[in-house]
């Protein structure tokens, strides 16, 4: 419950950053998908029910600020969470490099899911072209954002809660924070 209370406001802060602070600083309407990074992190560290519910809720929140298709990002983020959660059982979840790898896979999966959901259920228009043209810069931007978030999280943990154990951050200080 405590962790849920952390994830949800964090998701909201990420959304506000994504919609207001980051767009004027980045060209061509690109912005890092911070919510996707959060959902990948949830997939590595949370259970199916709590993580799934949180991912869907965060996706629905994103839908209010993105496009005009309610439930689209809810569905995409839920599927991304389930895919990461399924893969996490077979991987070493304490490796920060894994998070970066999964963020890359998550970016591609989310783009494919958005295309599927719009192509089969709604009028996608030229969206497939927009996504295909922008997938590589988006992937690089998401990776950069994930690296920066890992560094920031490791620094915050060392600064404010040096004795606590944040899931998925073991070893991050050695790789990214120092």
């Amino acid at each position, binding site marked *: 419950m405590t962790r849920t209370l952390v994830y949800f406001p964090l998701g909201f802060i990420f959304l506000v950053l994504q*919609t*207001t602070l980051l767009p*004027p600083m980045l060209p061509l309407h690109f912005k890092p998908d911070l919510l996707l990074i959060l959902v990948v992190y949830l997939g590595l560290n949370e259970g199916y029910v709590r993580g799934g519910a949180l991912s869907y809720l965060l996706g629905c929140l994103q839908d209010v600020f*993105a496009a*005009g298709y*309610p439930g689209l990002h809810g569905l995409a983020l839920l599927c991304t969470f389930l895919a990461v959660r399924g893969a996490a059982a077979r991987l070493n979840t304490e490796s920060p490099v894994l998070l970066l790898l999964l963020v890359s896979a998550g970016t591609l999966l989310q783009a494919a899911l958005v295309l599927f959901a719009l192509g089969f259920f709604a009028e996608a228009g030229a969206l497939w072209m927009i996504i295909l043209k922008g997938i590589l810069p*988006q992937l690089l931007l998401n990776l950069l954002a994930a690296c920066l978030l890992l560094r920031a999280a490791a620094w915050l943990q060392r600064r404010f809660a040096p004795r606590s154990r944040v899931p998925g951050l073991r070893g991050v200080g050695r790789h990214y924070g120092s």
Partner: protein
Amino acid sequence: MLELLRKYRTPLLAGCLILAALLLYSAQLRQRETTNVFERTVLGLTAPVQGGMDILADGVAGVWNRFLGIFGNSPEVLRLSAENRRLRSELVQLTEVRLENERLSRLLAFREETESQAVPARVIAEDASSWFRTVLIDRGRQDGVHEGMPVVVAEGVVGRVIKSAASESKVLLATDGSSAIAGLVQRTRARGICRGQGNLLSFDFAMHWEEIEEGDLIVTSGAGGVFPKGLTVGTVSRVSPGGFGLFRSVEVTPAVDFYRLEEVLVLLKERR
């Protein structure tokens, strides 16, 4: 049976969750033209936060742009550039009015153009995703802004309102993949549909025998009932040869600089 369910509990749970999300998404698509309670509540709650963050973002972006040295123009150059844009926009509108007058005079049914009622609004946030082109404005139902209303700036068409809460609305930009605006070539009156392509527009369904050249101005045709007639959409930047197809492939550069949208006008009533 129970053992089978227990064995495949996780995949079954995941499948049920996906199916439920898919059904919810599919059901909500029918009401996508209206703003639901969840959207209204979230937009209402976040309006003050985003308004404040927008001011902060302006400051941060200013520092960032100066740091990058992208905008090294002096205030005088910026003022003259803005005036130039305004005058060009007036010229386009005057040309459109002149052509319309000629046609109507010939038909002896001249009717004077009346200006629409408009509400000025500030852009306070951009789309949360890189794939879509929407913006949030700081005006909503309490200002008379509702779904379907056209949004413009001096240079031309911006888009239309797709969601409206009490004090905040979401605008679908003309460059979004799902946006379609009925337009015509100002010089030849060739008709078509302007569809969003991300950063550019395409002018679809223009017949291959129509005369369209690079530099031609595309204006709204008024068909469809959303946008008033004669608003600038963009300029033809590339025309591919007709070939054996029925339609020509035309690329249009939007008249509006969507990267620097700050203030917009929401037209509350269509101009006749």
